[in-house]
């Protein structure tokens, strides 16, 4: 069996290193069936894709397989790089995966001739299977979770089963991979999301929560937090305060590191559940900033997006965080179906009125695999089919309305943000 040269390429936004690629790397290296020479490198998405291709094509040994995770905001770069690599090295097999391509795997293969294989869903088992199959000259198309070209056709293997025992995944944190100490490292304690927001792919179609064991969580956290020079990191969990007990346990594990000065930033929380006790637990864990909705305050959009919103509880949650010295980032989405111009302006007004610490506006991205992607026609949502899939118009807001709201919202957020003390003061 031939030793396979594999290149993993992370195309990242600023301040983020692909955790997905870390998991793929450790899973592939931990598979005893594989004899691989694995190279991993990361580039910033702002780099010209020609230089990403350059780095791939100058690797020694020359990669037999190149794998890249794809997100909506990195897709153009990734596909450009794939096209260039394939043109220069047609014999290289190109594998992509991630939320941008998994839910529309066949469409991606039809539209991106340079891509050979798409991994659907979680890749930690599918990707090593693909490598195993390639090294034996087998047919990749039959592998569960893989969609590939086969005999001029596009063939999809069976739907992959979600892994129940997450502890079976090799830990990227204890495997000796480099861990950033500057705040760009992320830790994961569970997968799935309790919410089913129609614009979001966080739960990847499943609201079932699958958690790592507490032993594994503690081990991963300690591996990251106790690293010499570690100043800050974050968690990728969609809701950090999933339950009070869970938050309490996490706080206990994190508190010794917090006492040494290790800080947690941009932790996603359900702010309406945060009271003084939860805020104290967050503070003891070293949390300095949390991120939350409301995304919108418009009743129609909330219903369309399957979100609940209680302004009083939301305000109380922000206040509890402020009192504990924790900055809150309030996120708002412009262009949700059902939202009128007044709804968006009310949302900006509401968020700023809470003096949370930061207000962040983003335009709706109609993401593959989400309810909005499926129901776009029914809802009258027009969006760019090209990534990052920004909304073009809704029945309530024209293209011009959306652009004006983006400009207005950014000016309002900037006016709010520019102030003397970035640490919210207790009222």
């Amino acid at each position, binding site marked *: 069996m031939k030793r396979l040269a594999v290149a993993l390429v992370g195309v990242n936004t600023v301040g983020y290193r692909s955790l997905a690629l870390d998991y793929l790397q450790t899973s592939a290296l931990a598979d005893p069936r594989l004899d691989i020479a694995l190279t991993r490198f990361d580039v910033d998405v702002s780099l010209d894709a020609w230089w990403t291709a350059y780095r791939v094509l100058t690797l020694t040994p020359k990669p037999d397989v190149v794998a890249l995770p794809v997100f909506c905001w990195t897709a153009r770069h990734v596909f450009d790089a794939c096209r260039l690599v394939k043109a220069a090295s047609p014999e290289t097999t190109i594998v992509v995966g991630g939320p941008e391509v998994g839910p529309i795997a066949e469409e991606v293969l039809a539209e991106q001739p340079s891509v050979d294989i798409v991994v659907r869903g979680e890749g930690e088992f599918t990707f090593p299977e693909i490598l195993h199959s390639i090294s034996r000259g087998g047919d990749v198309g039959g592998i569960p979770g893989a969609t590939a070209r086969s005999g001029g056709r596009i063939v999809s293997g069976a739907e992959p089963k979600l892994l129940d025992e997450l502890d079976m995944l090799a830990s990227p944190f204890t495997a000796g991979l480099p861990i950033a100490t500057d705040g760009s490292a992320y830790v994961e304690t569970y997968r799935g999301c309790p919410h089913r927001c129609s614009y979001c792919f966080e739960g990847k179609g499943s609201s079932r929560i699958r958690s790592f064991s507490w032993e594994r969580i503690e081990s991963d956290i300690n591996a990251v937090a106790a690293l010499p020079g570690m100043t800050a990191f974050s968690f990728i969990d969609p809701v950090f305060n999933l339950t009070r007990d869970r938050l309490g346990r996490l706080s206990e594990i994190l508190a010794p590191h917090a006492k040494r000065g290790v800080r947690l930033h941009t932790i996603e929380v359900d702010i309406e559940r945060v009271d003084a006790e939860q805020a104290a637990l967050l503070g003891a864990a070293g949390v300095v900033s949390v991120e939350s909705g409301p995304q919108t305050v418009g009743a129609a959009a909330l219903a369309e997006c399957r979100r609940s919103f209680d302004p009083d509880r939301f305000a109380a949650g922000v206040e509890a965080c402020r009192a504990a010295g924790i900055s809150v980032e309030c996120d708002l989405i412009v262009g949700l179906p059902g939202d009128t*111009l007044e709804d968006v*302006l009310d949302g*900006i*007004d509401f968020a*700023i*009125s809470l*003096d949370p610490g930061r207000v962040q506006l983003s335009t709706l991205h109609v993401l593959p695999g989400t309810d909005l992607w499926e129901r776009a026609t029914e809802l009258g949502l027009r969006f760019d089919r090209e990534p990052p899939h920004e909304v073009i118009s809704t029945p309530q807001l024209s293209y*011009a309305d959306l*652009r*004006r709201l983006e*400009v*207005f919202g*950014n*000016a*309002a957020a*900037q*006016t*709010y*943000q*520019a*102030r*003397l*003390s*970035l640490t919210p003061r207790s009222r």
Partner: protein
Amino acid sequence: MITFVEVAIGSDGELGCRRCGASSTQPHVRRASDVGAELASIATGWRYGPGPNVSFIGIEPFVHPELPQLIAAATSAGFSRVRLRTDGGALAKADNAAGAFSAGVRHLEIVLLGSAKTHDERSGRSGLFDDAAAGATAFSRAAESSAVSITARIPVCRHSVFDVAGAVVAAAALGASAATIDASGLKWSTDREALLDAALETATVNRVAACVINWDGGWTAPYDRTPWQSLPGVTQ
């Protein structure tokens, strides 16, 4: 949205169109102790949401002999946002931009009379736009990773209205996120209304949130709200 209370630190000294006689009167400077008392009163009674926030207006702040004391009075009274309405010229000199930032200024509202060429002509100060641009850059650089806001105030008169869209483009070139077009010096006409509408559209495509105030034709803006609102101070 965010509210700023406008506090006059002097009078008859803001940049304006020379042909309208803006520079013919002698500016009056208000004493720092008087301004300080007003600031303390505003801070104590603040009821407008996140803040308190103040905008120093009335004269070019960098000609006020007690500007450091004024800023210090605001910060010690607890103002979160201190804004200077300025022609920007002085920001390019010495360490004024860095000094203003370190003293506590987070907002600059730069007065623009038109595009770069018109601005210099109408102000009668050759090179003023370039100085303002250099000052805005120096201010942002001094802030490093801290958030600061640069906006523009565009007073229009019959001499400059033809170039109001040019002023908006100039504001974008300064890095302004928003612009307030003050039409108090302008009488209504269909042509002028069209020029103001064109300026608003120009603002949007340049990613500047703009509105027109004090216009005979009524409120002119995409919305009935602005990214911030200004309220008059006690002395106005």
